[in-house]
Protein backbone atom coordinates (compact mmCIF):
# COMPACT_ATOMS: atom_id res chain seq x y z
CA UNK A 1 0.00 0.00 0.00
CA UNK A 2 1.66 3.23 -1.06
CA UNK A 3 1.51 5.66 1.79
CA UNK A 4 -0.02 8.86 0.48
CA UNK A 5 2.22 10.96 2.76
CA UNK A 6 5.27 10.04 0.68
CA UNK A 7 3.47 11.43 -2.38
CA UNK A 8 2.79 14.73 -0.61
CA UNK A 9 2.55 17.28 -3.43
CA UNK A 10 4.55 20.46 -3.07
CA UNK A 11 2.48 23.54 -2.39
CA UNK A 12 1.01 25.04 -5.54
CA UNK A 13 -2.02 27.15 -6.24
CA UNK A 14 -5.21 25.11 -6.70
CA UNK A 15 -6.03 25.46 -10.39
CA UNK A 16 -8.64 28.12 -11.06
CA UNK A 17 -11.38 25.95 -12.61
CA UNK A 18 -10.80 22.43 -11.25
CA UNK A 19 -11.83 19.90 -13.85
CA UNK A 20 -14.52 17.47 -12.77
CA UNK A 21 -11.87 14.91 -11.70
CA UNK A 22 -10.32 17.41 -9.33
CA UNK A 23 -13.71 18.48 -7.99
CA UNK A 24 -14.69 14.84 -7.40
CA UNK A 25 -11.45 14.15 -5.57
CA UNK A 26 -11.73 17.27 -3.39
CA UNK A 27 -15.35 16.47 -2.57
CA UNK A 28 -14.53 12.84 -1.74
CA UNK A 29 -11.67 13.96 0.49
CA UNK A 30 -13.76 16.57 2.24
CA UNK A 31 -16.56 14.07 2.82
CA UNK A 32 -14.23 11.58 4.47
CA UNK A 33 -12.73 14.36 6.57
CA UNK A 34 -15.92 16.37 7.08
CA UNK A 35 -18.06 16.18 10.21
CA UNK A 36 -21.06 14.68 8.43
CA UNK A 37 -24.75 14.41 9.29
CA UNK A 38 -24.17 12.04 12.24
CA UNK A 39 -22.17 14.74 13.99
CA UNK A 40 -24.81 17.42 13.49
CA UNK A 41 -27.62 15.12 14.66
CA UNK A 42 -25.83 14.21 17.89
CA UNK A 43 -24.65 17.81 18.41
CA UNK A 44 -28.22 19.09 18.17
CA UNK A 45 -29.52 16.46 20.66
CA UNK A 46 -26.75 17.44 23.08
CA UNK A 47 -27.47 21.15 22.79
CA UNK A 48 -31.16 20.41 23.41
CA UNK A 49 -30.38 18.41 26.58
CA UNK A 50 -27.88 21.01 27.86
CA UNK A 51 -30.18 23.97 27.21
CA UNK A 52 -33.22 22.27 28.73
CA UNK A 53 -31.24 21.15 31.80
CA UNK A 54 -29.68 24.58 32.29
CA UNK A 55 -32.96 26.51 32.03
CA UNK A 56 -35.14 23.88 33.72
CA UNK A 57 -36.56 26.24 36.41
CA UNK A 58 -37.67 28.71 33.73
CA UNK A 59 -39.57 26.04 31.78
CA UNK A 60 -42.45 26.16 34.22
CA UNK A 61 -42.16 22.50 35.01
CA UNK A 62 -43.68 20.81 38.03
CA UNK A 63 -41.02 20.56 40.76
CA UNK A 64 -39.29 17.18 40.49
CA UNK A 65 -39.95 16.21 44.11
CA UNK A 66 -43.58 17.50 44.32
CA UNK A 67 -45.99 14.60 44.65
CA UNK A 68 -49.33 14.75 42.88
CA UNK A 69 -51.32 12.30 45.07
CA UNK A 70 -54.15 12.33 42.60
CA UNK A 71 -52.12 10.62 39.83
CA UNK A 72 -49.94 7.84 41.21
CA UNK A 73 -48.16 5.77 38.56
CA UNK A 74 -50.01 7.62 35.78
CA UNK A 75 -49.20 6.21 32.31
CA UNK A 76 -47.57 8.25 29.56
CA UNK A 77 -49.84 10.84 28.02
CA UNK A 78 -52.02 11.67 31.05
CA UNK A 79 -53.13 15.30 30.93
CA UNK A 80 -50.73 17.32 33.10
CA UNK A 81 -48.04 14.62 33.24
CA UNK A 82 -46.95 14.00 29.66
CA UNK A 83 -44.55 11.22 30.59
CA UNK A 84 -46.66 10.00 33.50
CA UNK A 85 -45.71 9.87 37.18
CA UNK A 86 -43.84 7.47 39.48
CA UNK A 87 -45.37 5.56 42.41
CA UNK A 88 -44.90 8.68 44.59
CA UNK A 89 -46.78 10.79 42.04
CA UNK A 90 -43.70 12.77 40.98
CA UNK A 91 -43.68 13.96 37.35
CA UNK A 92 -41.34 11.79 35.27
CA UNK A 93 -40.60 14.49 32.66
CA UNK A 94 -39.36 17.05 35.19
CA UNK A 95 -37.35 14.41 37.05
CA UNK A 96 -35.64 13.41 33.81
CA UNK A 97 -34.82 17.04 33.02
CA UNK A 98 -33.48 17.77 36.52
CA UNK A 99 -31.70 14.42 36.47
CA UNK A 100 -29.86 15.63 33.39
CA UNK A 101 -28.24 18.32 35.52
CA UNK A 102 -26.55 15.71 37.69
CA UNK A 103 -25.38 13.63 34.76
CA UNK A 104 -24.07 16.57 32.73
CA UNK A 105 -22.23 18.20 35.62
CA UNK A 106 -20.56 14.91 36.44
CA UNK A 107 -20.03 14.24 32.72
CA UNK A 108 -18.08 17.49 32.24
CA UNK A 109 -16.32 18.08 35.57
CA UNK A 110 -15.06 14.55 36.24
CA UNK A 111 -13.05 14.16 33.01
CA UNK A 112 -11.81 17.76 33.42
CA UNK A 113 -10.39 16.89 36.86
CA UNK A 114 -9.01 13.57 35.67
CA UNK A 115 -7.39 14.96 32.52
CA UNK A 116 -6.10 18.03 34.37
CA UNK A 117 -4.16 15.98 36.90
CA UNK A 118 -3.36 13.24 34.39
CA UNK A 119 -1.87 15.85 32.05
CA UNK A 120 0.59 17.10 34.67
CA UNK A 121 1.59 13.58 35.73
CA UNK A 122 1.93 12.38 32.14
CA UNK A 123 4.01 15.40 31.12
CA UNK A 124 6.35 15.00 34.08
CA UNK A 125 6.74 11.24 33.56
CA UNK A 126 7.20 11.55 29.79
CA UNK A 127 9.58 14.51 29.87
CA UNK A 128 11.78 13.86 32.89
CA UNK A 129 11.84 10.04 32.69
CA UNK A 130 14.13 8.38 35.24
CA UNK A 131 12.85 8.00 38.79
CA UNK A 132 10.00 10.50 38.21
CA UNK A 133 8.65 8.20 35.51
CA UNK A 134 9.14 5.18 37.78
CA UNK A 135 7.25 6.64 40.73
CA UNK A 136 4.38 7.97 38.66
CA UNK A 137 4.25 4.62 36.86
CA UNK A 138 3.90 2.75 40.15
CA UNK A 139 1.26 5.22 41.38
CA UNK A 140 -0.76 4.71 38.19
CA UNK A 141 -0.42 0.94 38.39
CA UNK A 142 -1.59 0.96 42.00
CA UNK A 143 -4.51 3.18 41.05
CA UNK A 144 -5.50 0.72 38.32
CA UNK A 145 -5.06 -2.24 40.63
CA UNK A 146 -8.04 -1.20 42.70
CA UNK A 147 -11.19 -1.68 40.61
CA UNK A 148 -12.77 1.73 39.97
CA UNK A 149 -16.08 0.97 41.59
CA UNK A 150 -14.41 0.02 44.85
CA UNK A 151 -12.89 3.47 45.14
CA UNK A 152 -16.24 5.05 44.31
CA UNK A 153 -17.95 2.90 46.93
CA UNK A 154 -15.48 3.89 49.60
CA UNK A 155 -15.61 7.56 48.65
CA UNK A 156 -19.38 7.79 48.45
CA UNK A 157 -19.80 5.96 51.73
CA UNK A 158 -17.14 8.18 53.31
CA UNK A 159 -18.47 11.51 52.15
CA UNK A 160 -22.11 10.82 51.43
CA UNK A 161 -23.91 11.88 48.28
CA UNK A 162 -22.80 15.44 47.61
CA UNK A 163 -22.49 16.10 43.87
CA UNK A 164 -19.07 17.64 44.40
CA UNK A 165 -17.71 14.47 45.99
CA UNK A 166 -19.11 12.31 43.20
CA UNK A 167 -17.40 14.51 40.61
CA UNK A 168 -14.14 14.47 42.57
CA UNK A 169 -14.03 10.72 43.12
CA UNK A 170 -15.07 10.04 39.52
CA UNK A 171 -12.43 12.52 38.33
CA UNK A 172 -9.76 10.58 40.22
CA UNK A 173 -10.78 7.52 38.20
CA UNK A 174 -9.84 9.19 34.93
CA UNK A 175 -6.33 10.14 36.02
CA UNK A 176 -4.51 6.87 35.03
CA UNK A 177 -5.77 6.70 31.44
CA UNK A 178 -5.19 10.43 30.88
CA UNK A 179 -1.70 10.18 32.39
CA UNK A 180 -0.81 7.24 30.17
CA UNK A 181 -2.00 8.94 26.98
CA UNK A 182 -0.11 12.15 27.87
CA UNK A 183 3.04 10.23 28.77
CA UNK A 184 2.99 8.32 25.46
CA UNK A 185 2.39 11.53 23.47
CA UNK A 186 5.13 13.37 25.40
CA UNK A 187 7.61 10.56 24.83
CA UNK A 188 7.10 10.62 21.04
CA UNK A 189 7.15 14.41 21.03
CA UNK A 190 10.40 14.81 22.99
CA UNK A 191 12.04 12.36 20.62
CA UNK A 192 11.37 14.61 17.64
CA UNK A 193 14.12 16.85 16.31
CA UNK A 194 12.30 20.14 16.90
CA UNK A 195 12.53 19.57 20.65
CA UNK A 196 16.26 18.78 20.38
CA UNK A 197 16.62 21.86 18.19
CA UNK A 198 14.95 23.96 20.91
CA UNK A 199 17.38 22.54 23.44
CA UNK A 200 20.23 23.36 21.07
CA UNK A 201 18.98 26.98 21.08
CA UNK A 202 19.38 27.00 24.85
CA UNK A 203 15.66 26.85 25.70
CA UNK A 204 14.87 25.99 29.32
CA UNK A 205 12.90 22.85 30.18
CA UNK A 206 9.89 24.97 31.12
CA UNK A 207 9.88 26.73 27.77
CA UNK A 208 10.26 23.45 25.90
CA UNK A 209 7.33 21.91 27.79
CA UNK A 210 5.00 24.88 27.36
CA UNK A 211 5.94 26.02 23.85
CA UNK A 212 7.12 22.86 22.06
CA UNK A 213 5.58 19.82 23.74
CA UNK A 214 2.23 21.05 25.08
CA UNK A 215 0.71 22.31 21.77
CA UNK A 216 1.47 18.96 20.18
CA UNK A 217 0.01 16.73 22.86
CA UNK A 218 -3.11 18.76 23.62
CA UNK A 219 -4.90 17.50 20.51
CA UNK A 220 -4.70 13.75 21.16
CA UNK A 221 -5.64 14.47 24.77
CA UNK A 222 -8.73 16.53 23.88
CA UNK A 223 -9.83 13.83 21.46
CA UNK A 224 -9.42 11.35 24.33
CA UNK A 225 -11.41 13.52 26.76
CA UNK A 226 -14.38 13.24 24.42
CA UNK A 227 -14.44 9.52 25.21
CA UNK A 228 -14.34 10.15 28.98
CA UNK A 229 -17.48 12.32 29.09
CA UNK A 230 -19.91 9.53 28.13
CA UNK A 231 -18.03 7.10 30.38
CA UNK A 232 -18.42 9.54 33.29
CA UNK A 233 -22.18 9.73 32.68
CA UNK A 234 -22.46 5.96 32.52
CA UNK A 235 -20.44 5.41 35.71
CA UNK A 236 -22.47 8.09 37.53
CA UNK A 237 -25.55 6.22 36.34
CA UNK A 238 -24.21 3.00 37.83
CA UNK A 239 -23.42 4.77 41.10
CA UNK A 240 -26.86 6.28 41.42
CA UNK A 241 -28.25 2.88 40.45
CA UNK A 242 -26.55 1.53 43.59
CA UNK A 243 -27.91 4.53 45.49
CA UNK A 244 -24.43 5.85 46.12
CA UNK A 245 -24.60 8.98 44.02
CA UNK A 246 -26.66 12.07 44.95
CA UNK A 247 -29.11 11.24 47.71
CA UNK A 248 -32.84 10.54 47.35
CA UNK A 249 -34.74 13.77 46.74
CA UNK A 250 -32.46 15.06 43.96
CA UNK A 251 -33.39 13.07 40.83
CA UNK A 252 -30.75 11.29 38.76
CA UNK A 253 -31.17 9.06 35.77
CA UNK A 254 -29.53 6.06 37.41
CA UNK A 255 -31.70 6.51 40.50
CA UNK A 256 -34.87 6.64 38.42
CA UNK A 257 -33.89 3.49 36.53
CA UNK A 258 -33.16 1.72 39.79
CA UNK A 259 -36.45 2.80 41.38
CA UNK A 260 -38.39 1.81 38.27
CA UNK A 261 -36.90 -1.69 38.36
CA UNK A 262 -39.54 -3.10 40.68
CA UNK A 263 -42.37 -1.87 38.45
CA UNK A 264 -40.85 -3.20 35.22
CA UNK A 265 -43.90 -5.38 34.65
CA UNK A 266 -46.65 -2.88 35.34
CA UNK A 267 -45.25 0.46 34.22
CA UNK A 268 -41.99 -0.12 32.37
CA UNK A 269 -41.81 3.54 31.31
CA UNK A 270 -40.50 4.47 34.75
CA UNK A 271 -37.23 2.71 33.89
CA UNK A 272 -37.31 2.89 30.11
CA UNK A 273 -37.76 6.70 29.72
CA UNK A 274 -34.60 7.61 31.69
CA UNK A 275 -32.83 4.69 30.01
CA UNK A 276 -33.69 6.02 26.55
CA UNK A 277 -32.71 9.61 27.41
CA UNK A 278 -29.41 8.54 28.96
CA UNK A 279 -28.66 6.21 26.06
CA UNK A 280 -29.30 8.94 23.47
CA UNK A 281 -27.17 11.47 25.34
CA UNK A 282 -24.24 9.10 25.83
CA UNK A 283 -24.50 7.88 22.23
CA UNK A 284 -24.47 11.48 20.95
CA UNK A 285 -21.35 12.26 22.96
CA UNK A 286 -19.64 9.18 21.54
CA UNK A 287 -20.62 9.86 17.94
CA UNK A 288 -19.77 13.58 18.14
CA UNK A 289 -16.43 12.76 19.76
CA UNK A 290 -15.59 10.18 17.09
CA UNK A 291 -16.45 12.57 14.26
CA UNK A 292 -14.21 15.26 15.78
CA UNK A 293 -11.40 12.75 16.32
CA UNK A 294 -11.62 11.74 12.66
CA UNK A 295 -11.28 15.39 11.75
CA UNK A 296 -8.22 15.87 13.98
CA UNK A 297 -6.39 12.64 13.24
CA UNK A 298 -7.03 12.73 9.54
CA UNK A 299 -9.44 10.04 8.56
CA UNK A 300 -8.15 6.91 10.27
CA UNK A 301 -9.61 7.40 13.75
CA UNK A 302 -10.97 4.72 16.01
CA UNK A 303 -8.25 4.99 18.60
CA UNK A 304 -9.58 3.67 21.87
Amino acid at each position, binding site marked *: MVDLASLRPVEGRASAAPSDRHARAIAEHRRSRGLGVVFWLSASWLTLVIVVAAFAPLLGLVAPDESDWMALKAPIGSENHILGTDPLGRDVLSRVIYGARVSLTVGFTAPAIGVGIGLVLGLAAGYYRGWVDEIIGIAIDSWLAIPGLVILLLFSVLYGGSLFMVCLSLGLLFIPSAARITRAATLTCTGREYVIAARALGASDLRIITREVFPNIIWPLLAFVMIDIPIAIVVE*GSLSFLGLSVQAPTPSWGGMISEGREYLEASPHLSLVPTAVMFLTVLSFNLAGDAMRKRVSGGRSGAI
Partner: protein
Amino acid sequence: MRYLLGRVQRLLIVLLVVTFSTFLLVSVLPGDVAYQIGGMDASEAEIAEIREELGLNQPVVLRYLEWLTRLAQGDWGRSLLTGESVWSMIIERVPISLELMLLAQVMALAIAVPAGILSAWRPNGWADRFITSLGFACVSMPGFMTAILLIYFFSLHLGWLPATGYEPLSAGLWANLKPMILPALSLALVEWTVLMRTLRAEMITTLQENYISLARAKGMSTTRVLLAHALRPSSFSLVTILGLQVARLLGGAIILEQIYGIPGIGRLLIHAVYTRDLIVIQGCVTFFALTYVIVNFLVDLAYAWLDPRVREARAHG
Protein backbone atom coordinates in the same frame (compact mmCIF):
# COMPACT_ATOMS: atom_id res chain seq x y z
CA MET B 1 15.53 -13.07 33.08
CA ARG B 2 16.60 -9.93 34.87
CA TYR B 3 13.81 -8.04 33.11
CA LEU B 4 11.12 -10.35 34.53
CA LEU B 5 12.62 -10.03 38.03
CA GLY B 6 12.44 -6.26 37.61
CA ARG B 7 8.76 -6.55 36.64
CA VAL B 8 7.97 -8.80 39.65
CA GLN B 9 9.73 -6.39 41.98
CA ARG B 10 7.70 -3.49 40.59
CA LEU B 11 4.41 -5.38 40.87
CA LEU B 12 5.17 -6.30 44.51
CA ILE B 13 5.65 -2.62 45.29
CA VAL B 14 2.28 -1.93 43.66
CA LEU B 15 0.73 -4.61 45.87
CA LEU B 16 2.14 -2.97 49.01
CA VAL B 17 1.08 0.53 47.97
CA VAL B 18 -2.45 -0.65 47.19
CA THR B 19 -2.97 -2.56 50.39
CA PHE B 20 -1.56 0.21 52.57
CA SER B 21 -3.60 2.96 50.91
CA THR B 22 -6.78 0.93 51.22
CA PHE B 23 -6.00 0.22 54.84
CA LEU B 24 -5.53 3.95 55.40
CA LEU B 25 -8.72 4.81 53.53
CA VAL B 26 -10.80 2.18 55.25
CA SER B 27 -9.66 2.97 58.76
CA VAL B 28 -10.80 6.54 58.25
CA LEU B 29 -14.34 5.30 57.49
CA PRO B 30 -16.98 7.03 59.63
CA GLY B 31 -19.43 4.91 61.51
CA ASP B 32 -17.17 2.68 63.54
CA VAL B 33 -17.60 -1.03 63.16
CA ALA B 34 -17.71 -1.37 66.91
CA TYR B 35 -21.20 0.11 66.82
CA GLN B 36 -22.14 -2.49 64.24
CA ILE B 37 -21.07 -5.27 66.58
CA GLY B 38 -22.26 -3.75 69.82
CA GLY B 39 -25.64 -2.84 68.41
CA MET B 40 -27.13 0.67 68.55
CA ASP B 41 -27.93 0.65 72.23
CA ALA B 42 -24.54 -0.56 73.48
CA SER B 43 -23.06 1.61 76.20
CA GLU B 44 -19.93 3.62 75.76
CA ALA B 45 -18.02 1.20 77.97
CA GLU B 46 -19.02 -1.79 75.87
CA ILE B 47 -18.04 0.02 72.67
CA ALA B 48 -14.65 0.97 74.15
CA GLU B 49 -14.16 -2.61 75.26
CA ILE B 50 -14.95 -3.96 71.76
CA ARG B 51 -12.58 -1.44 70.21
CA GLU B 52 -9.86 -2.52 72.62
CA GLU B 53 -10.48 -6.18 71.95
CA LEU B 54 -10.30 -5.69 68.18
CA GLY B 55 -7.23 -3.48 68.62
CA LEU B 56 -8.85 -0.59 66.76
CA ASN B 57 -7.15 1.99 69.00
CA GLN B 58 -3.60 1.19 67.91
CA PRO B 59 -2.04 3.57 65.37
CA VAL B 60 -2.93 2.67 61.80
CA VAL B 61 0.61 1.75 60.72
CA LEU B 62 0.99 -0.79 63.50
CA ARG B 63 -2.35 -2.40 62.66
CA TYR B 64 -1.37 -2.54 59.01
CA LEU B 65 1.97 -4.20 59.74
CA GLU B 66 0.29 -6.68 62.02
CA TRP B 67 -2.27 -7.45 59.32
CA LEU B 68 0.47 -7.77 56.71
CA THR B 69 2.56 -10.19 58.75
CA ARG B 70 -0.48 -12.36 59.37
CA LEU B 71 -1.33 -12.20 55.65
CA ALA B 72 2.20 -13.32 54.85
CA GLN B 73 1.52 -16.44 56.89
CA GLY B 74 -1.65 -17.05 54.91
CA ASP B 75 -4.05 -15.77 57.55
CA TRP B 76 -6.34 -13.29 55.81
CA GLY B 77 -7.96 -12.38 59.09
CA ARG B 78 -11.51 -12.83 60.29
CA SER B 79 -14.62 -10.83 59.46
CA LEU B 80 -15.28 -8.43 62.33
CA LEU B 81 -19.01 -9.15 62.13
CA THR B 82 -19.46 -12.83 61.49
CA GLY B 83 -15.99 -13.97 62.58
CA GLU B 84 -15.85 -16.11 59.45
CA SER B 85 -12.37 -16.37 57.93
CA VAL B 86 -11.99 -13.90 55.07
CA TRP B 87 -10.08 -16.42 53.04
CA SER B 88 -12.90 -18.95 53.04
CA MET B 89 -15.43 -16.26 52.12
CA ILE B 90 -13.28 -15.23 49.14
CA ILE B 91 -12.45 -18.75 48.02
CA GLU B 92 -16.11 -19.67 48.11
CA ARG B 93 -17.03 -16.76 45.75
CA VAL B 94 -14.01 -16.68 43.43
CA PRO B 95 -15.17 -19.48 41.10
CA ILE B 96 -18.49 -17.71 40.57
CA SER B 97 -16.98 -14.34 39.66
CA LEU B 98 -14.30 -16.10 37.65
CA GLU B 99 -16.86 -18.05 35.62
CA LEU B 100 -18.89 -14.90 34.93
CA MET B 101 -15.79 -12.97 33.87
CA LEU B 102 -14.39 -15.75 31.67
CA LEU B 103 -17.75 -16.34 29.94
CA ALA B 104 -18.10 -12.60 29.30
CA GLN B 105 -14.54 -12.29 27.94
CA VAL B 106 -14.92 -15.28 25.64
CA MET B 107 -18.14 -13.82 24.24
CA ALA B 108 -16.54 -10.35 23.93
CA LEU B 109 -13.52 -11.75 22.08
CA ALA B 110 -15.69 -13.90 19.82
CA ILE B 111 -17.47 -10.74 18.65
CA ALA B 112 -14.55 -8.27 18.80
CA VAL B 113 -11.83 -10.13 16.85
CA PRO B 114 -13.75 -10.79 13.62
CA ALA B 115 -15.42 -7.37 13.84
CA GLY B 116 -12.06 -5.66 14.37
CA ILE B 117 -10.46 -7.40 11.40
CA LEU B 118 -13.44 -6.76 9.13
CA SER B 119 -13.63 -3.06 9.94
CA ALA B 120 -9.87 -2.58 9.67
CA TRP B 121 -9.79 -4.23 6.24
CA ARG B 122 -11.83 -1.43 4.66
CA PRO B 123 -11.56 1.66 6.94
CA ASN B 124 -14.67 3.84 6.54
CA GLY B 125 -16.28 1.16 4.36
CA TRP B 126 -19.86 0.11 5.00
CA ALA B 127 -18.78 -2.79 7.27
CA ASP B 128 -16.57 -0.47 9.29
CA ARG B 129 -19.29 2.16 9.70
CA PHE B 130 -21.88 -0.43 10.72
CA ILE B 131 -19.59 -2.12 13.24
CA THR B 132 -18.34 1.17 14.69
CA SER B 133 -21.83 2.57 15.18
CA LEU B 134 -22.98 -0.75 16.68
CA GLY B 135 -19.96 -0.48 18.99
CA PHE B 136 -20.94 3.03 20.04
CA ALA B 137 -24.48 1.90 20.73
CA CYS B 138 -23.24 -0.89 23.02
CA VAL B 139 -20.77 1.39 24.81
CA SER B 140 -23.46 4.00 25.32
CA MET B 141 -25.60 1.42 27.06
CA PRO B 142 -24.21 0.99 30.59
CA GLY B 143 -24.08 -2.53 32.03
CA PHE B 144 -27.05 -2.18 34.34
CA MET B 145 -29.27 -0.79 31.53
CA THR B 146 -28.42 -3.71 29.25
CA ALA B 147 -29.12 -6.03 32.17
CA ILE B 148 -32.58 -4.56 32.71
CA LEU B 149 -33.45 -4.70 29.02
CA LEU B 150 -32.19 -8.29 28.73
CA ILE B 151 -34.22 -9.32 31.76
CA TYR B 152 -37.22 -7.47 30.39
CA PHE B 153 -37.14 -9.37 27.09
CA PHE B 154 -35.57 -12.73 27.75
CA SER B 155 -36.90 -13.63 31.13
CA LEU B 156 -40.05 -11.54 31.67
CA HIS B 157 -41.47 -11.63 28.14
CA LEU B 158 -40.02 -14.77 26.59
CA GLY B 159 -39.26 -16.57 29.82
CA TRP B 160 -36.36 -18.48 28.26
CA LEU B 161 -33.72 -17.63 30.84
CA PRO B 162 -33.92 -17.12 34.62
CA ALA B 163 -33.38 -13.54 35.73
CA THR B 164 -31.48 -14.30 38.90
CA GLY B 165 -29.86 -17.10 40.90
CA TYR B 166 -26.76 -19.21 40.57
CA GLU B 167 -26.48 -23.01 40.27
CA PRO B 168 -23.15 -24.55 41.21
CA LEU B 169 -21.51 -26.74 38.57
CA SER B 170 -22.37 -29.82 40.64
CA ALA B 171 -25.99 -29.28 39.59
CA GLY B 172 -25.12 -30.09 35.97
CA LEU B 173 -23.44 -28.04 33.26
CA TRP B 174 -26.56 -26.65 31.60
CA ALA B 175 -28.16 -25.89 34.96
CA ASN B 176 -25.03 -23.95 35.87
CA LEU B 177 -24.72 -22.17 32.57
CA LYS B 178 -28.35 -21.21 32.15
CA PRO B 179 -28.44 -18.42 34.76
CA MET B 180 -25.02 -17.26 33.64
CA ILE B 181 -25.90 -16.47 30.01
CA LEU B 182 -27.73 -13.16 30.62
CA PRO B 183 -25.19 -11.66 33.04
CA ALA B 184 -22.26 -12.71 30.87
CA LEU B 185 -23.98 -11.30 27.79
CA SER B 186 -24.69 -7.94 29.40
CA LEU B 187 -21.03 -7.76 30.46
CA ALA B 188 -19.75 -8.87 27.04
CA LEU B 189 -21.92 -6.32 25.19
CA VAL B 190 -19.97 -3.48 26.81
CA GLU B 191 -16.49 -5.01 26.77
CA TRP B 192 -16.34 -6.15 23.14
CA THR B 193 -16.37 -2.58 21.81
CA VAL B 194 -13.15 -1.57 23.56
CA LEU B 195 -11.43 -4.75 22.34
CA MET B 196 -12.72 -4.23 18.78
CA ARG B 197 -11.57 -0.62 18.62
CA THR B 198 -8.10 -1.47 19.91
CA LEU B 199 -7.67 -4.26 17.37
CA ARG B 200 -9.09 -2.08 14.57
CA ALA B 201 -6.71 0.84 15.27
CA GLU B 202 -3.71 -1.51 15.48
CA MET B 203 -4.70 -3.42 12.33
CA ILE B 204 -5.11 -0.23 10.32
CA THR B 205 -1.53 0.82 11.15
CA THR B 206 -0.18 -2.68 10.48
CA LEU B 207 -1.90 -2.87 7.09
CA GLN B 208 0.11 0.19 6.02
CA GLU B 209 3.39 -1.60 6.71
CA ASN B 210 5.76 -2.68 3.92
CA TYR B 211 5.68 -6.35 4.87
CA ILE B 212 1.96 -6.39 4.12
CA SER B 213 2.65 -5.01 0.62
CA LEU B 214 5.32 -7.70 0.28
CA ALA B 215 2.81 -10.37 1.34
CA ARG B 216 0.42 -9.11 -1.35
CA ALA B 217 3.31 -8.98 -3.81
CA LYS B 218 3.96 -12.65 -3.01
CA GLY B 219 0.47 -13.39 -4.27
CA MET B 220 -1.03 -14.19 -0.87
CA SER B 221 -4.83 -14.14 -0.71
CA THR B 222 -6.52 -11.37 1.25
CA THR B 223 -7.68 -13.69 4.02
CA ARG B 224 -4.15 -15.06 4.43
CA VAL B 225 -2.70 -11.53 4.48
CA LEU B 226 -5.23 -10.49 7.16
CA LEU B 227 -4.97 -13.58 9.37
CA ALA B 228 -1.46 -14.99 8.92
CA HIS B 229 0.41 -11.72 8.40
CA ALA B 230 -1.46 -8.81 9.93
CA LEU B 231 -3.27 -10.27 12.95
CA ARG B 232 -0.34 -11.31 15.11
CA PRO B 233 1.67 -8.03 14.96
CA SER B 234 -1.57 -6.16 15.69
CA SER B 235 -2.54 -8.15 18.78
CA PHE B 236 -0.03 -6.66 21.24
CA SER B 237 -2.16 -3.85 22.69
CA LEU B 238 -5.21 -6.12 22.47
CA VAL B 239 -3.51 -8.42 25.00
CA THR B 240 -2.75 -5.47 27.28
CA ILE B 241 -6.33 -4.21 27.17
CA LEU B 242 -7.59 -7.76 27.75
CA GLY B 243 -5.35 -7.98 30.82
CA LEU B 244 -6.69 -4.69 32.18
CA GLN B 245 -10.26 -5.77 31.58
CA VAL B 246 -9.85 -9.17 33.22
CA ALA B 247 -8.46 -7.51 36.35
CA ARG B 248 -11.22 -4.89 36.32
CA LEU B 249 -14.02 -7.29 35.51
CA LEU B 250 -13.30 -9.45 38.52
CA GLY B 251 -14.26 -6.51 40.74
CA GLY B 252 -16.20 -4.53 38.15
CA ALA B 253 -19.13 -6.95 37.85
CA ILE B 254 -20.37 -5.68 41.20
CA ILE B 255 -23.55 -4.17 39.76
CA LEU B 256 -24.41 -7.15 37.59
CA GLU B 257 -23.86 -9.51 40.50
CA GLN B 258 -26.28 -7.28 42.41
CA ILE B 259 -28.94 -7.29 39.66
CA TYR B 260 -28.64 -10.96 38.75
CA GLY B 261 -28.28 -12.03 42.35
CA ILE B 262 -25.00 -13.84 41.74
CA PRO B 263 -23.01 -14.33 45.02
CA GLY B 264 -19.70 -13.16 43.56
CA ILE B 265 -16.87 -11.21 45.12
CA GLY B 266 -18.44 -7.93 44.07
CA ARG B 267 -21.44 -8.43 46.31
CA LEU B 268 -19.23 -9.54 49.17
CA LEU B 269 -17.35 -6.27 48.86
CA ILE B 270 -20.47 -4.08 48.68
CA HIS B 271 -21.86 -5.80 51.74
CA ALA B 272 -18.56 -5.33 53.57
CA VAL B 273 -18.50 -1.63 52.68
CA TYR B 274 -22.05 -1.06 53.89
CA THR B 275 -21.35 -2.85 57.14
CA ARG B 276 -17.89 -1.27 57.53
CA ASP B 277 -16.35 -4.74 57.88
CA LEU B 278 -12.75 -3.50 57.63
CA ILE B 279 -10.97 -6.81 57.46
CA VAL B 280 -13.24 -8.16 54.70
CA ILE B 281 -12.86 -4.96 52.68
CA GLN B 282 -9.10 -5.18 53.09
CA GLY B 283 -9.20 -8.84 52.09
CA CYS B 284 -11.26 -8.23 48.95
CA VAL B 285 -9.14 -5.30 47.79
CA THR B 286 -5.97 -7.29 48.40
CA PHE B 287 -7.45 -10.10 46.33
CA PHE B 288 -8.25 -7.68 43.48
CA ALA B 289 -4.74 -6.22 43.66
CA LEU B 290 -3.30 -9.74 43.61
CA THR B 291 -5.31 -10.67 40.50
CA TYR B 292 -4.26 -7.41 38.82
CA VAL B 293 -0.60 -8.17 39.57
CA ILE B 294 -0.85 -11.77 38.38
CA VAL B 295 -2.78 -10.84 35.23
CA ASN B 296 -0.22 -8.12 34.45
CA PHE B 297 2.53 -10.66 34.81
CA LEU B 298 0.72 -13.07 32.48
CA VAL B 299 0.26 -10.25 29.95
CA ASP B 300 4.03 -9.68 30.01
CA LEU B 301 4.63 -13.36 29.33
CA ALA B 302 2.08 -13.27 26.50
CA TYR B 303 3.98 -10.31 25.03
CA ALA B 304 7.18 -12.34 24.92
CA TRP B 305 5.39 -15.22 23.23
CA LEU B 306 3.65 -12.98 20.70
CA ASP B 307 6.53 -10.70 19.77
CA PRO B 308 9.90 -12.37 19.15
CA ARG B 309 11.65 -8.97 19.38
CA VAL B 310 10.54 -8.64 23.01
CA ARG B 311 11.51 -12.25 23.72
CA GLU B 312 14.96 -11.54 22.30
CA ALA B 313 15.42 -8.31 24.29
CA ARG B 314 14.41 -10.01 27.49
CA ALA B 315 16.67 -13.02 26.95
CA HIS B 316 19.62 -10.64 27.13
CA GLY B 317 18.01 -8.27 29.66
